[in-house]
């Protein structure tokens, strides 16, 4: 039995966990991060890699913009650019109805100071001649970016380790107790930790921890299917998304086109697998071919996914526990945690060290699940069938 003492214990070595560890260590906190597998193994490492600012939940813009500023200096922060690139993001509509929706998203973005270009059919033909004729109009945000999720979480973890964070992989928390304003944890590897604060950022596995402290959220596990083509000459610069939710894709400079397909897929957090049904692979391929007809002759060479937590209102839980002082939750990132990851880590470090953060986090309180939960329109569109609220992993 090894006994450790720390200021903060972090449960879950995904993107949220490693960024929280990093910023806490920068503030002089002694941090232990516990990960059941290896850092960034699930959706943190297997997501699409989009750092999209367009079309986000309105209440998330302050957090999102703060996070983007961190992404923009990632190389300075951790010594590794992780293929960060300000590629821009094109949000396209295929009909006038859809266009009204895109413009409404743009108005929200613009009200938060984001520069959005409005491109009509003629602009689209001129700037992106490879885009299908069916694209009616689009908005473009130059500040939206991409990075390589495979690389980011391990790189941030290494930087955190360099700042003195203790990172323990392949260990599961088996016990978590609180008393006298402190916590004690035990793991299946015989480690025990005494600490003042705990961050619960265990992704699709976070609910069990919250429930231990009499809090709940209708969290369920799912996996966003990802696909990649063989490489060919680089010609698609921005990341491109259809507002109807059928396809999102980007080309990386080495030539492969990465695409994500909807609807998302149920995942198995016990077996730790998120298999992709082949019908979805075919559907994603058809949608990509429809969006970029020139790609029809190319091949999909690989498919993958990873497990993450979703909530029916399609926004995460971020903030202090309402029952247990010293416990903080950050889970259920609903397919858009990659962009806000560094910002969430920074805000949590402020909450823990300063007792407050300048970034409004009220919309993300776990307290919102005490009454009935309304399912978001995106939620209904992006899943095969609405899982029962409260469906536990």
């Amino acid at each position: 039995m090894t006994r450790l003492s720390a200021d903060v214990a972090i449960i879950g070595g995904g993107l949220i966990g490693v960024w929280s560890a990093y910023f806490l260590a920068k503030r002089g906190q002694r941090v232990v991060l516990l990960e059941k597998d290896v850092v960034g193994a699930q959706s943190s490492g297997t997501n699409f890699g989009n750092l999209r600012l367009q079309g986000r939940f309105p209440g998330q813009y302050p957090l999102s913009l703060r996070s983007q500023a961190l992404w923009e200096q990632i190389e300075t922060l951790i010594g590794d650019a992780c293929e960060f690139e300000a590629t821009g993001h094109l949000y396209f509509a295929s009909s006038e109805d859809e266009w009204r929706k895109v413009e409404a998203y743009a108005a929200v973005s613009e009200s938060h100071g984001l520069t959005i270009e409005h491109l009509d059919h003629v602009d689209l033909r001129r700037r992106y001649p490879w885009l299908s004729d069916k694209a009616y109009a689009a908005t473009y945000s130059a500040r939206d970016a991409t990075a390589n999720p495979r690389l980011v979480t391990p790189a941030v973890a290494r930087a955190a380790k360099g700042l003195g964070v203790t990172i323990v992989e392949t260990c599961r928390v088996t016990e978590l107790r609180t008393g006298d304003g402190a916590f004690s944890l035990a793991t299946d590897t015989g480690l025990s930790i005494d600490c003042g604060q705990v961050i619960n950022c265990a992704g699709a596995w976070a609910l069990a921890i919250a429930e231990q402290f009499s809090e709940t959220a209708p969290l369920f596990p799912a996996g966003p299917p990802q696909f990649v083509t063989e490489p060919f000459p680089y010609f698609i610069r921005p990341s491109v998304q259809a507002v109807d939710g059928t396809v999102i894709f980007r080309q990386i400079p080495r030539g492969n086109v990465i695409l994500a397909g909807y609807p998302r897929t149920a995942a198995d957090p016990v077996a730790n697998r998120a298999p992709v049904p082949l019908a979805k692979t075919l559907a994603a391929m058809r949608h990509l071919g429809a969006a970029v007809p020139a790609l029809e002759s190319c091949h999909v060479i690989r498919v993958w996914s990873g497990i993450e937590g979703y909530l029916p209102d399609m926004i995460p839980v971020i903030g202090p526990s309402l029952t247990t002082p010293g416990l903080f939750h950050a889970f259920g990132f609903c397919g858009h945690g990659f962009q806000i990851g560094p910002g969430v880590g920074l805000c949590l470090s402020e909450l823990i060290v300063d007792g407050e953060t300048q970034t409004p986090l009220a919309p993300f309180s776990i307290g919102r699940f005490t009454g009935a939960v309304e399912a978001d329109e995106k939620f209904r569109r992006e899943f095969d069938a609405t899982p029962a609220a409260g469906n536990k992993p």
Partner: protein
Amino acid sequence: MTRIVIVGAGPAGINAAETLLAHGRQPILLDEGRQAGGQGYRKPSPGLRLDMNALMGSEASKYQALHERFESLRGQIDYRPGTLVWGIDGKTLHLQQDGRATTLDYDALVIATGAMDRIAPMPGWTLPGVFGLGGAQVALKDQGCFIGRRVAFLGSSPLLALAARQYRALGAEVVVIADTTPFVRKLAALPALLNSPRTLLRGLAYLGGAMRAGVPVLHGVTPLAVAGDGHVESLLIRDAKGRERRFACDAVALGYGLKPETQLAELAGAQLAYDEAFRLWLPQADADGRAGDGLYLAGDGMTIGGADAAEASGALAAHALLADLGIPSDAAAVAALRRRASRLRAFQRGLSQAFAWPVAQIRALPDDVTLCRCEKVSLGEIRQAMAQELGPTEVNRVKAMTRCGMGRCQGRICGPALQEIVAGVGNIAGAEAGRLRMQAPIKPVALAAAKAGAS
């Protein structure tokens, strides 16, 4: 009626089809190839007149017999050549045929997908002119082409001598047969090799023929480099006595035995286990090939046994399937097939020692050697990734960190060597290095096929 699908029309698949048909069942036989026969008994392209008797040598009569048997049954079964099975979802096969993605439901599945070359990388192995040993044979049998006029055969495999004989029989020059396994290890494997004295003698005859023709036949070599300016010009090796020897050539055929094509078996639900003798992950099945509910494996795709074992195991898998359907079959015939398959597989285990996978040589390769040619990942990049803080210790994680195995071939080429590097750097057993997990598509699928399949 139970729908039975066989994947692969090589000796195992053909024997399975024949056995099923003999018991009143008409299977659907899917094959990626345009013509039946698999790799070993591959037929020349239509219109190409090749002397297959000269090419097949002592195996010509088996070649003829298998194709004659296939011709007599093809009209009675649903045979679909040129059909790639690229994934399995529950009991649905996903196919790509004539540029269209389609599906096919099954009740029982016989997977007879055969094997491919196992490749060990070496300096210069990505130069144009270097081929897998099987590829060298495909070029010859399918297209009537040599991979070069002056060919070096390098690796460790009984097929080196066989392919060299085929090349010589049709008029190519064989500049060297260079085997990495020392001669003493071959002697040590003799008891196991006596399980099939006929095959052993045939192999020795191939080597004897080459030696009489003045072809240098070397054992215990260390491959040093394939050299050339944009194309193979020579092969450099160190011989068993420590001398460097350069052989001028315009092509190199490289092969270290065979590696079962296990992707579909894995997707169909077969369990895989690490085999210490072959140093490969093999799908688990009982002696007759049962690997799961309605799932049967046969031939080299299950475990390396060679063409004769594939014939026996194809028939065995069909008998197992029939028995599971409650259709009685000839117990004595089944027992004889089991004995035959088991003896031939024991022989192959002997071969895996006589022609050893060169673990130490792979681990000693310099950093600048390309390991993953699809994604251009060098051995140095793998070693560096593993050496860093929180570095990966298992092949799937190494793949995630370095891109090794992420490309077109999905690790089918680099996978075995990657496993050895990871085990070597991590100083762990081969099994602990893990295996690259499979997710469909097992081979690239065209966007156009998805579109055509939907209309």
